[in-house]
């Protein structure tokens, strides 16, 4: 095996201030009660910045600003709104290296991913929806689709800027104004996005960013002057939001958890399947709602496949997110690390066999070695619960019918994978999987034109594509 010399991306491309306020009505402001929290680099536990924690009054101010801005923003010709979004897309492209480094610092994801996946998709998403702003009458939602008003949006920490783009781009293109709350552990890229909005000279109040924890999000989704709630996060919180929104007439879309089956049939190309499995579960440290966290492998090839998979896992480089050779970065937070650790221990206790490649983890920061469990049954908690980490549960099957049965045996239904060289099998299995995204002979592919979202308890509504407009139109 080759030894790799360190290849760190330069941190100097991004300048992080020591403290940040809330972005309300076009300017940064402190929280009314002066509360702040710290955001840390999960790879080093170094404090990156202090950030304002928005309380009820701050959320009120942000919603009021969005409401004021709505009148003119929604009345603006779509072609003009489009140009603001094109500007934002361009600025993101120009500042993409800075934003990628920032994202890796605050989130812990490898620079390779923030640079080559997150940031290009963020820019592409704004570019895509910019083009819709003056074509909404052709989108299939009636001849005169109208915006809803103020959108309250709450996003997770796994793809901070990308989730922001998925929320803000369609909302703005359709003429809504937004108040967005980024996750508590990854607030920085949203605050840098606020600066992108200023550079684009976006009218004040069209985009407002309120940072804080769960209570800030709860104030936002329960605010009586919010017309539309969009949430990406856990199924548990999604349920609470659906309850809170019930009876209010607010429109709601939810993109929640998953426990995707990645099904490998005996005629699959093994090397490609192994790459797909690795990408499916170790991409972004497994902090992916659509991660292929359950490997269903046909019994006849299980041994061969697992041998290849383990060999491949041994080459994964875990460590410094800013190193351009790093494959697996830091776990986003101590709390998430504790959850992954706990569920993995339960996996072993319940009788599954645990394996990780030998790998040196850094002394500081939050780390978890890529892990697989074999001998997993459908009753095991690691086969049922979302771990949201680099942990793969391996189950076997004998017939396609058994694979489909096991794949669908979950309350979730976000994504699934199929590996086989047989075209007719791909199509028939894809038809029977109860999941919103099915990747056949590939995995974890995303595109602004491609609708994304779940069946069952993985939520409702779609983000991306023409479908993504529906959530923001009356």
């Amino acid at each position, binding site marked *: 095996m080759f030894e790799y010399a360190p290849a760190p991306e330069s941190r100097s491309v991004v300048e992080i201030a020591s403290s940040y306020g809330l972005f309300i009505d076009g300017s940064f402001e402190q929280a009314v009660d002066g509360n702040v929290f710290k955001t840390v680099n999960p790879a080093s536990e170094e404090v990156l910045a202090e950030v304002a924690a928005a309380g009820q009054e701050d959320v009120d101010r942000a919603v009021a600003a969005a409401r004021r801005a709505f009148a003119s923003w929604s009345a603006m010709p779509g072609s003009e709104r489009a140009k603001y979004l094109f500007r934002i897309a361009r600025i993101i492209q120009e500042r993409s290296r800075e934003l990628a480094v920032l994202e890796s610092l605050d989130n812990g994801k490898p620079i390779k991913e923030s640079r080559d996946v997150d940031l290009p998709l963020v820019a*592409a998403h704004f570019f895509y929806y910019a083009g819709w702003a003056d074509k909404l009458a052709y989108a*299939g939602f*009636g001849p005169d689709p109208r915006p809803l008003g103020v959108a309250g949006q709450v996003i997770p920490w796994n793809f901070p800027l990308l989730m922001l783009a998925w929320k803000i781009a369609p909302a703005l293109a359709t003429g809504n104004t937004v108040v967005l709350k980024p996750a508590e552990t990854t607030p920085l890229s949203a605050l840098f996005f606020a600066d992108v909005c200023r550079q684009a000279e976006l009218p004040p109040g069209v985009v407002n960013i309120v940072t804080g924890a769960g209570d800030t999000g709860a104030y936002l989704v329960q605010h009586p002057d919010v017309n539309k709630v969009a949430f990406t996060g856990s*199924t548990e919180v*999604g*349920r609470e939001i*659906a*309850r809170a929104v*019930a*009876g*209010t*007439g607010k429109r709601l879309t*939810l993109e*929640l958890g998953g426990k995707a089956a990645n099904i490998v049939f005996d005629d699959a190309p093994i090397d490609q399947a192994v790459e797909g499995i690795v990408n499916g579960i170790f991409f972004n440290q497994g902090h992916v709602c659509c991660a292929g966290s359950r490997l269903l492998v046909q019994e006849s090839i299980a041994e061969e496949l697992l041998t290849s998979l383990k060999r491949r896992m041994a080459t994964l480089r875990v460590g410094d997110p800013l190193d351009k050779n790093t494959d697996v970065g830091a776990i986003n937070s101590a709390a998430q690390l504790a959850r992954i650790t706990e569920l993995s221990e339960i996996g072993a206790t319940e009788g599954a066999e645990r394996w990780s490649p030998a790998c040196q983890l850094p002394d500081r920061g939050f780390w978890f070695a890529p892990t697989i469990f074999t001998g997993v049954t459908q009753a095991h908690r690691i086969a049922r619960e979302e771990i949201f980490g680099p942990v793969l549960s391996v189950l076997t099957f004998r017939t396609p019918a058994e694979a489909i049965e096991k794949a669908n045996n979950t*309350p979730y239904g976000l994504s699934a994978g199929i590996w086989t060289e047989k075209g007719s099998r*791909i199509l028939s299995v*894809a038809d029977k*999987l109860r*999941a*919103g*995204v*099915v*990747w*056949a*002979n*590939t995995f974890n*592919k995303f*595109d602004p*034109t*491609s*609708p*994304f*979202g779940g*069946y*069952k*308890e993985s*939520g*409702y509504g*779609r983000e991306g*594509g023409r*479908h993504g407009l*529906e959530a923001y139109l009356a």
Partner: protein
Amino acid sequence: MPKTAKAAEPTRLSVRKTYKLYIGGAFPRSESGRTYVVNGDNVALASRKDARDAVLAARAAQPKWAGATAYNRGQVLYRVAEMVEGRRAEFTTLGVPAAEVDATIDRLVWYAGWSDKIAQVAGGANPVAGPFFNISAPEPTGVVAIVAPPSLLGLVSVVAPAVVTGNTVVVLAADPQVAVTLAEVLATSDVPGGVVNILTGRYAETAPWLASHADVNGLDLTGVEHAELAAELERAAAGTLKRVLRPGLGGTDFTADPGLRPMTAFLETKTVWHPKGH
């Protein structure tokens, strides 16, 4: 129609209809044995157990119904329209205006035609930036519980859009006699048993069980009149993240063009990716 009969001739006693539930293609009484009186007729008063039985029937029928070709589902719905036409007199006797029967038949024909078109309108190819085949297609949500509005047109306007796309439904009917008569239409229209299940009774009693039922995927609240009950049902539906169709303020005008929403409310979008290569 009163007839003047001669005293010597015995008058013929009419045979009355027993208004029962419609579950799994059969017409059972309520397992609770309860009835209530509607326009002088005894009508089955559905219980929680009946609601659960109806969900079982709907679930059992769903894969085959969804797996039927769209062309076939369209033909079945068209057949329902034909059968309503044949029972026009019975509906008007129950007080449904003739114009509403016409509109109901036309609505059924409209939805019958949607069966093999909705996938093209609501789905299609996505031009992703990479060497991938990528296509989105709508699929039925599964089992949908419907609190139906009282009119025949309203009833058909909530049932047809849900089933034409491959869902199966449990309907809590508001006007039991109209609903049971429609059930008789369905039973003679090639609609497979269990695709449409109709419960008569008090929806305030049965709807909460359906809203919280873990094997129900969608909830249509069009027929719920009280905002507070609607909110309560919506909250219950959040437990398993059911898709909920909420009526707009001021009720629904069933004579208007329904648009796509009654269908898309109970459709999922599945997107399939595959690499392109040699």
